[in-house]
């Protein structure tokens, strides 16, 4: 086995894209497929630089349809394969992701959100929530981790491979242009040294032996003849997805018990919320926060409980309510007032959050 770039625990100071490339190497990812798009390009740049040294492969495809389908091919061959994209690339990737969803293929996709719709900006947004959680012509059988800082980018990129291979649902790390391009500190480590086992991979096709003689052939489909068949498949997937949801769902919350107002946010906006809440608390205001880490599946039980208790909620996100729609569905019936702080395509600062809270309370 070729060596790994990181031994022991060490503090690093780098960009998020570099963090993702390192995390994928440390997770024993074997092959990356990708197509250039800002702001994820440097994931490919760092991966291709490390590749020969650590025995990794890379293929630059002709577009994101191809990047997605080659990643599908990679996992069918039993490799820990991944891709990374953003914005219009994420749009194109919904077709291959749909296939992965239909055939329970453990692809890992890193999304660095940029402004939308269309080409928009290469900078930042939280406008790929709907697409990433529910895109394609399906039911959203996907796991989506929304990270907020470089430590999480590292931790959850590694975790994404395990979630994908354990449950066999396409798994996403949802970052954004800020996280991709900014530099901050984090601790990187070899997951195995921390006792974190990588879930083993398994080939769907190309196993040893002659099909029909030594083993049954591996035959996988996504097309069905009659309504009853697809109905049954989707029902089964739904059951399995719902069954794993409580185990997969992650969240963080603070001060929701006594809060007059609970701020719901995800990803990088959560940083602003956390900062604002700590200031507002110091100023004697009863505010708390709830931050889903998984946007799909959501921590439904905890969200419901929180919303049932809360007097008022403030939804803060860099889109016109993409996270809010997901949350509202879960908390349906709660009587808390819902306020919003939507800044589509733009960052939200702690000052923005604090000012909005003061305008409500």
């Amino acid at each position: 086995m070729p060596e790994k770039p990181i031994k022991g625990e060490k503090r690093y100071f780098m960009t998020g894209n570099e963090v993702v490339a390192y995390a994928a190497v440390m997770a024993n990812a074997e092959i990356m497929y990708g197509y250039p798009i800002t702001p994820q390009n440097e994931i490919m740049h760092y991966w291709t630089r490390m590749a020969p040294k650590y025995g990794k492969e890379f293929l630059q495809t002709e577009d994101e349809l191809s990047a997605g389908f080659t990643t599908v091919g990679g996992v069918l061959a039993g490799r820990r394969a991944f891709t990374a994209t953003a914005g219009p690339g994420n749009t194109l990737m919904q077709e291959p992701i749909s296939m992965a969803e239909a055939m329970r293929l453990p692809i890992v996709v890193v999304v660095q959100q940029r402004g939308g719709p269309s080409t928009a900006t290469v900078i930042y947004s939280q406008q790929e929530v709907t697409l990433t959680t529910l895109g394609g012509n399906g039911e959203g059988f996907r796991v989506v981790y929304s990270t907020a800082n470089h430590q999480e980018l590292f931790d959850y990129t590694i975790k994404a491979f395990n979630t994908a291979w354990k449950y066999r649902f396409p798994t996403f790390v949802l970052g954004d242009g800020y996280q991709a391009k900014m530099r901050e500190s984090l601790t990187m480590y070899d997951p195995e040294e921390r006792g974190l086992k990588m879930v083993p991979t398994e080939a769907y096709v190309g196993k040893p032996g002659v099909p029909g003689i030594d083993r049954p052939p591996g035959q996988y489909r996504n097309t069905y003849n009659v309504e009853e068949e697809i109905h049954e498949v989707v029902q089964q997937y739904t059951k399995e997805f719902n069954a794993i949801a409580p185990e997969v769902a992650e969240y963080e919350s603070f001060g929701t018990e006594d809060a007059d107002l609970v701020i719901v946010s995800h990803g990088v906006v959560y940083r602003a919320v956390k900062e604002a809440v700590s200031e507002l608390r110091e100023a004697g205001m009863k505010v708390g926060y709830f931050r889903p880490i998984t946007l799909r599946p959501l921590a439904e039980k905890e969200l419901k409980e929180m919303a049932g208790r809360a007097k008022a909620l403030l939804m803060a996100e860099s889109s016109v309510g993409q996270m809010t729609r997901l949350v509202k569905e879960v908390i349906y019936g709660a009587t808390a007032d819902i306020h919003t702080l939507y800044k589509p395509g733009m960052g939200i600062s702690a000052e923005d959050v604090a000012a909005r809270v003061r305008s409500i309370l």
Partner: protein
Amino acid sequence: MAKAVKIVLAGEGGQGVQSVAEIIAEAANEEGREALYIPNFGVEQRGGVSVAFLQIGDQAVGSPKFNTADIVIALSERAVRRTSQYVGPDTVFVYDSGLQGIEDDIPKNARKVLAIPALQVASDELTPRVFNIIIMGAVVKATDVVTEDRAKDAIEKKLGYKFEKNPKLRDLNYKAIDRGAELVAALL
């Protein structure tokens, strides 16, 4: 929670504001502090003003961008105009005294406005190439986010390979840090 120091550095493409921000961020990180540096980037960045957002503190930094900076350093006429949005009543606004036609654009609401002759010092005393290092000295002095010695170490780390070949460069860069610090110290 002690708040992070928030810094905005802005200039024209070739003025090296991004590398200054990056070196300061790395120096702070080396000191065990928490730093967050985010460049601005976009389709039209080629023609536009280059802005760097930098925060340094002792705890994990909150949101990567912010509305109001503790210190804004604007190195070109356009940068002065572009960055006035980050100025508030607690902001120290620093600009180069050689800039022209900006009298009306200097923010009126800043806590302090400092005009430093960095461009002039660079070309008269040192070399225009270390202009950005003078600025770095000024930022470090004005904010105390890292010590001047740490700043020098960080430069050594970044440019050490060049200094090996030409030790005079090291002196020049160190002097630039000192001069930058002096320029601000005289005004603070």
